[in-house]
C-alpha cells in the first residue's frame, strides 16, 4: 500500500482550513491529507477542535478560509447531504439513532443518498421504484449481517444494547456507500473487550470494504494500535503529524498532553 501512495490521488485533502466562532479560532490553518485505505486519527486534548474539524468536512460548518478536497473535488460550502452523497459518511460522538424506527429502517435511511425514487414514483409504485426498494432492503439486511445484528432487524433501534447501537450507527453510515468514513470516538464508553472488538471491526472495515477511515479518539491504545497516520491538534492548530511512533515521541505532543516538560519547568524556576 505504501509504495503507490505517490501515484494515488488522496481521498481527503484539507488545505489550510480555518474555522472561527466569533473571536475564538476553533481550527486554524489546518492541513491534512489522507491516502486511500489508510486509517488516520486525529487526537488532541478536549477542546482542541477535532469535532469542529469533522463538522467542517461533513458540511455542518463552513470553514472561513481554506478548501477541502474530496477525491479531487472541492467540497467546501456544500450541504451535509450533498457531501454524504459524494461519499463521506460519519458517525457521532453521542449515539444518534433514529428513535421510532427499527434497526433495518435505520440502515435503510442510510441508503437514502444512493436511491433515486421520487415520491411520485413511490405513489405509483413504478417497477423501477419497486426494484430499488427491494435492493435497498436487501442491502440493509446484508449490512446487518456484516455487523451481526440481522437477528434484531425488526427491533426498535433504541432498544439495542449500547455496543450494538454503536455498530448500528457505523452500519448506517456504511449504507451510503462511502469512500471515507469519519468516526467520532467510536470506542467512547466501552470496556477493554468491547474496545478490542471495535478495533478489529474498524480494521475489517478497511480491509473488506476498501474504506478510508478518519477517526477521532481519546483512547491512546486504539489510536496507537490501528492508525497508519496520527495528527495531533492543540488549540485548533496542528502540532504534530506522522506514524504513531513518531507522534508518541514528539516533545510538543507530550507538552500538549502533560504540560511543559520537566526540564523546562525547572529552568523556568531557575530563571526566576
Amino acid at each position, binding site marked *: 500500500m505504501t509504495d503507490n501512495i505517490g501515484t494515488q490521488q488522496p481521498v481527503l485533502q484539507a488545505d489550510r482550513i480555518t474555522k472561527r466562532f466569533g473571536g475564538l479560532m476553533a481550527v486554524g490553518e489546518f492541513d491534512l491529507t489522507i491516502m486511500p485505505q489508510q486509517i488516520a486519527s486525529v487526537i488532541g486534548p478536549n477542546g482542541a477542535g477535532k469535532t469542529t474539524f469533522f463538522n467542517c468536512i461533513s458540511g455542518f460548518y463552513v470553514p472561513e478560509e481554506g478548501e477541502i478536497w474530496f477525491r479531487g473535488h472541492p467540497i467546501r460550502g456544500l450541504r451535509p447531504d450533498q457531501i454524504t452523497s459524494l461519499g463521506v459518511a460519519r458517525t457521532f460522538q453521542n449515539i444518534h439513532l433514529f*428513535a421510532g424506527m427499527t434497526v433495518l429502517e435505520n440502515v435503510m435511511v442510510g441508503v*437514502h*443518498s444512493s436511491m433515486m425514487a421520487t415520491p411520485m414514483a413511490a405513489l405509483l409504485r413504478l417497477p423501477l421504484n419497486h426494484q430499488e426498494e427491494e435492493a435497498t*432492503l436487501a442491502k440493509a439486511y446484508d449490512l446487518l449481517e456484516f455487523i451481526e445484528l440481522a437477528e434484531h432487524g425488526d427491533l426498535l433501534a433504541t432498544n439495542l444494547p449500547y455496543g450494538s447501537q454503536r455498530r448500528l450507527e457505523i452500519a448506517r453510515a456504511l449504507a451510503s456507500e462511502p469512500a471515507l468514513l469519519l468516526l467520532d470516538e467510536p470506542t467512547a464508553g466501552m470496556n477493554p473487550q468491547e474496545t478490542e472488538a471495535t478495533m478489529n471491526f474498524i480494521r475489517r472495515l478497511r480491509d473488506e470494504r476498501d474504506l478510508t477511515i478518519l477517526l477521532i479518539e481519546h483512547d491512546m491504545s486504539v489510536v496507537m494500535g490501528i492508525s497508519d497516520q496520527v495528527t495531533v491538534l492543540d488549540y485548533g492548530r496542528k502540532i504534530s503529524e506522522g506514524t504513531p511512533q513518531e507522534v508518541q515521541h514528539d516533545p510538543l505532543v507530550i507538552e500538549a498532553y502533560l504540560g511543559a516538560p520537566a526540564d523546562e519547568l525547572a529552568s523556568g524556576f531557575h530563571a526566576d
Partner: protein
Amino acid sequence: MLNRFIQRFTDAIRKGASSGCVAGLVILFLILIGVPIKLQSLALFMLLFVVLVFGISLGRRLYEKGLAHLLLNSLAMGAAAAIVVFLFMSLINSWQSKGIEVKQYFDSVTTETMTVLSGVPEEELHPNPEIDPMTGDYMEGEPLRTDPMRLTFDADTGLRFKVGMASDAWLDMNMTIGGFYGFMLLLIIFGLLGTLVTWAAISFDVNRYRTQTSQYLSGNPILHWLVLLLPLILFALLWLMVGHGGSDPILNLGDGAQEIQLLTGFMLVLFGLVAMRAAHPTHWELAYPVRFGICAGAVVFLAVIGIWRILQDDRYFIAPPPTPEGSAALSVGAVVVVAAALLIQNWFALRNPERFEIQLSAVLSLGTLLLMPLYLDQYQADVMTLVGINVLLGLGLNIVVGYAGLLDLGYVAFFALGAYTYAFLGSRQFVYDNDQNPIGYKFEGNVDVVDRIMAWVLTTLIVGTIAIYFGLRYWKQRQATQAEQYIERPTLLRLPARPQANTTLLLIALAVGTSAVTAIILEVTGLYDKLFNGASPFLVGLLAGVIVSGLSGILLGIPVLRLRGDYLAIVTLGFGEIIRLMFNNLRDYTGGPQGVLQIPRPLPNDAAGPVTYLSIVYLVFMGAGLVAFLSARLKQSRTGRAWSAMNSDETIAQSMGVNLVQSKLMAFAIGAAFAGIGGVLFAARQRNIFPGDFNLEVSIEVLSLVIIGGMGSIPGVIMGAIVLIGIPEVLRELSTYRILVFGALLVTMVIIRPKGLLPAPTAQLRERARALVHGSEESQA
C-alpha cells in the same frame, strides 16, 4: 406489626384500587353527561361495561401474579369504582332530599338518573315534596320519599337491567336489588366477572395469548375469526335495522334507531380496520379453487345485496346530467365494476396460500364499508361525510405532523384554500338588482373560466406529455454521448442519472409553452367552446383546489424551513389566521363574511332524492380511501423514511444524505394537497361556505384527532375522526360537554396511551429482507 400488615395490604391492592378510581371517574363522567337519562335502557349496561373493561385489563396485567392477588385487586377495583360513584350520588341524593334543584349544577342529572341507578320509582323519589304552608307538614296525598341509599331486596324497587331501545327492550330484567348499594354490588360483580373471564381465557390458552401483544385476539381461533367476521356481522345488524322497500325494519329500534344505526356504521368502519389488522399470514391448507371460491363468494354475495338495495329502494349514487334522480344502470354498473376489480385482485393475490385470511378480511371489510352508505338516511350520510372529510384532513396532517414531525397549527388554511378555490370556480350565486331580479353571477365569468381551465389542463396534459417524452429522449441520447459523469457515484441500480434541475425546468417550460400555444390556437379558432362547453365544474374544481393548496403548502414551507418545534407552530398558526382573515376581509373578491353561496354539487342542478347525499358520501369515501392508500405507500418509500428520520433528528438525517429542504417542502405540499381535496369536498357538501367555517378550532380538532388516533398511523386517524367527530355528532344532545371531552380525552390519552388509540405498528421487514438475501439458497437446500 399491624402497621406493616396494612402497608403490605395496600401495596397489594394498589393497582386494583387505582384503576378502580379511574373506572369510577369514567362512570361518573357518563352519568354527568346524561347517559342514564338519554339512553335509559342501555345505561346500566354501559356503566357496568366500563367496570367490565377495566376488569379485563386488570386481568391481563396481573395474570402472572396469581389468582388470589388477582381476585383481591379486582375486588378492590370494584369497590373503589363503587365508592367514587357512591360519594357523588350521595351528594346528589342529599341535595335532592333538601329540595335543591340539581339540574342547575349538573344539567343532565335529574330524578330519572336516580331512578335508573337505584331502582326506586320516580314518583317515590319526588325531590321537593310540597309542604303545606299552614302546618309545615307534607301535603296530603304526596308520595313519601324513599331513600335510595337503602339496600332493599324487593321487586318493586329493584334495579332494572335493560338492554335495547326505550320502547321495547330485548332484555328487561328486574334484579330485585334496590338502592345504590345494589348498583355498587353490581359494579363489584361485573369487575370480578371481567377479571375472572380474562383469567380463565389466559390460563386456557396462555402461550398463544402471549405471543403477540398487539394481536392478542388471534390466540383463540374462535375469537380470532369472530374479529375477522365482525364487519360482516355488524353489516348484518345494520341490514336488519333498516327498512327495505318501504316496509318496517326487522329489528325495530324505535326512537333511537337513527343514532344506533349510525353507531353501527361507525363500528363497522372501526372493526373493518381491526379485522384487517388482526388478519395475518397463515397457511390454512386450502386448495386454490376453495380459497378463491370463498373470497369470490363473499364478493358476489355483497355485490348482490348492494344491487338489490339499489334497485329496490332507488338508492342511486351516480347522476349524469339528464337524470336528476340518479341512474340505476350506472349505479349498478359501478357496483359490478368494483366487484369485478375485487375479484381480479383476489384472483392474483390468492395464489399465495398464506394470504387467504388477509384477503378475506379485506374483502369483507371493504365490501361492507362500501355497502354501508346505501343503508343510511340523509342525516346519517351527512355525518358520515363529515367524518370522511375529517379523515381526509387528518391523513393530510398526519403526513406533516405524524410522518415528518413538523407541528402545523395552521392546517385549516389549506382546507380553506381548497374549499374557496372550488367555490370561486363553481358558485352559481346570483347578483340581484334593486328589484330583486337576478342580473348575473356574483363570481362573474366563472363558468367560462372553468371551461378554459379544464380545456387548458387537458391540452397541457396531452401536449406536455408528448413534449416531455421527446425531450427526455433527446436528453438521454445526449447524455449517452457525453463523457464521464461529474463524479462517479454508486447507485443501487444501474440507472441513468436524473436530468439536472435546469434540464427539468427546461422540459417543463417547453411543455407549458407548447400547451399554451396550443391553447391560444384553440381559443382563436373557437374550438374551445365547441369541445368543452358545459363541463361539470366539480372535477376542474377538485383539480384546481388540489393544485392551489399544494402550491400554497410549498409557499408556506419556504419561509419556515429553518424553524423547528414551537416556532414552527407559531408561524403556521399565523398563516392559518391570515388566510381566514383574508377571506373575511377581501369582501369584493370573496364575499367577505357572507361567504360564497350556491356552490354546485357534483350532480345535475336539479338533482333530488337519495342521490344528493349518497354521491357525496361515496366521493368522500373515495377521496379518503385514495389518500389513505397514498399515505401508506409514501410511508414505506424512500421519502417516507426520510420524513421519519427527519422527525427523529434533523441533523442526523441530513448527515445521512436526506435533503431537508426537499423533504420538508414535499411534506408540506402533499399534506396541503390532501387538505385541498378535503376542502373541495367540504364545499360541495355544504354548498355555502363562510370564513367562519375555517377558524382555528378546525386545526385544533384535526390535530387532536391525529394525536388521539395515533401519530403516523392511518387506522389511528380514521379511529380518531370517528371518536372525535362522529360520535359527538351522534350524541348531539351531549354536545355541551364536547370540549370537556376533548380535553379529558387528550390528557388521558397522553398519559395512558401516548402513542394514540391505534398506534402505527413498527415495520416488520426482516423476514422479507431475509428472503430477498437468502431466498435462493434456501430453496436449493
